[in-house]
């Protein structure tokens, strides 16, 4: 489930054609079949099938550019991503300020990973990236460091959403050190073999496939090693609804959205919801990080 070769993904064009075909079938048969379609599927959909480039790049939650799903695509077009540098600081022996070119020069690989949004939808995205641990190994983390904090750029001139108090800007996210060092925690540099579009978090973002999407901070300028648990943006906005861990967990409902099932982006009107998997299906890889923890309390 973790990695596939590019050749195993359905090419974009064929995928889209198939989609519109299925959709048009769906509409004409819609009224007839609505009742005969089986209820919520037992298994997750085929993860080989990547979501289309168009959907991945036009349907985004990126509140720095507005709260609408289409806002980032429209408003991030002229976002300045050069010059850009990333500071790695805090409880480290060798703090660093890396020009983004140097980070992008680190060898990226294709990682097809599933994104599950806390709102109850999911995508499968062929990211380009590398493990965050590669970056963190450059700075010699001090033993006192327990958490990693990610900070998104604060640029209200270009990020119009930051002009309003929707969240406490800049956007802060964070992980426990062992989560951050896990090989699946990815520094994303691109998607679908291309450089990362602005609306998806250019020039650099983080991606943690077993956590709800909002944990994966975009347009990162600072990575700080800390002793205390970071005051992450959504937890700060509503601690009852969003926990620090925010692992995908079908058994812990969000007060407003059921987390038991999800809608697959790009599917037709008639496609049923699919069951959400514990840790978004990455349990074999990451469940051991939470041994002995009550995940209902540490949501």
């Amino acid at each position, binding site marked *: 489930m973790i990695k596939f070769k590019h050749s195993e993904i359905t090419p974009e064009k064929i995928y889209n054609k198939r989609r*519109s075909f299925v*959709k*048009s079938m769906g*509409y004409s048969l819609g009224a007839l079949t*609505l*009742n005969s*379609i089986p*209820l*919520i599927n037992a298994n997750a959909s085929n993860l080989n099938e990547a*979501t289309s480039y168009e*959907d991945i790049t*036009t*349907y985004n939650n990126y*509140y720095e550019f507005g*709260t609408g*799903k*289409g806002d980032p695509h429209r408003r991030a077009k002229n976002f300045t991503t050069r010059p850009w540098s990333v500071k790695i600081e805090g409880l480290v022996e060798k703090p660093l300020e890396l020009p983004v070119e140097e980070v992008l020069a680190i060898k990226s690989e294709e990682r097809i990973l599933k994104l599950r949004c806390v*709102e109850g*939808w999911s995508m499968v995205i062929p990211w380009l990236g590398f493990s965050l641990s590669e970056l963190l190994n450059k700075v010699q983390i001090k033993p006192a460091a327990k958490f990693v904090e990610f900070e998104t750029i604060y640029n209200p001139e270009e990020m119009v959403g930051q002009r*309003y108090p*929707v*969240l406490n800007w800049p956007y802060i996210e964070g992980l426990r050190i062992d989560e951050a060092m896990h090989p699946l925690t990815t520094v994303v540099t691109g998607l679908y073999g291309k450089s990362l579009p602005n609306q998806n978090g250019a020039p650099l973002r983080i991606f943690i496939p077993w956590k709800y999407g909002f944990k994966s901070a975009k347009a990162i300028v600072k990575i700080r090693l800390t002793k205390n648990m970071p005051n992450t943006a959504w937890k700060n*906005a509503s601690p009852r609804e969003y926990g620090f861990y925010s692992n995908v967990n079908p058994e812990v*409902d969000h*007060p*407003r959205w*059921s987390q*038991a*099932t999800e*809608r697959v*982006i*790009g599917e*037709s*009107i008639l496609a*049923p*919801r699919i069951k959400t998997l514990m840790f978004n299906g990455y349990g074999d890889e990451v469940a051991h990080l939470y041994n002995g923890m009550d995940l209902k309390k540490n949501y």
Partner: protein
Amino acid sequence: MKNYLKPFVFLLLLWPIYIISYQIIFNELGPEPVDRIINHFGEWTLIFIILTLSISPLRKLTNSTEWIKFRRMFGLFTFFYASIHMLSYVGLDYRFDFEPLINDVFKKKFIFIGFSAWLLLTLLALTSSDKMIRLLKHNWKKIHRLVYIIAIFGALHFIWLSKTIFFKPLIYSIIILILLSFRIKFRKKA
């Protein structure tokens, strides 16, 4: 001319249906079509509540009673769009799978309040005919003041289902509060 006005307005008020039909036919519902349909009719329900609540203030402001002719139509359209909104949630999203749905109604306050608003709207729709007006006499007015509560429920429904109040839930709530505040003033004068 006058005979054509009502049918014309009726066809105009079907606007949300034209839009969604166009989007379905030309495949423009976007990446999350089910969500799009549910939200489309939810938002239009709020717009129709606002239109219905605007009639009385418009009557006072323009000193014309013409508006009142359309109030029932607006009200029934509110019920119509609220019903499609709810049915698309129950049918399209949850495939009439009632166990999680009932769970939702009791566990999620935004669903609870939305569903309550729809039940109240049903009551108003059922008592909207001339016959019912005659039958209920002065009680009719009292019952139909429930629309104020429905409007507040609708605004809360939108606020609670959104991740943040910015900006649409806030805008709709402000408009509804302004329209409701007209009622308070008018009653003081009377």
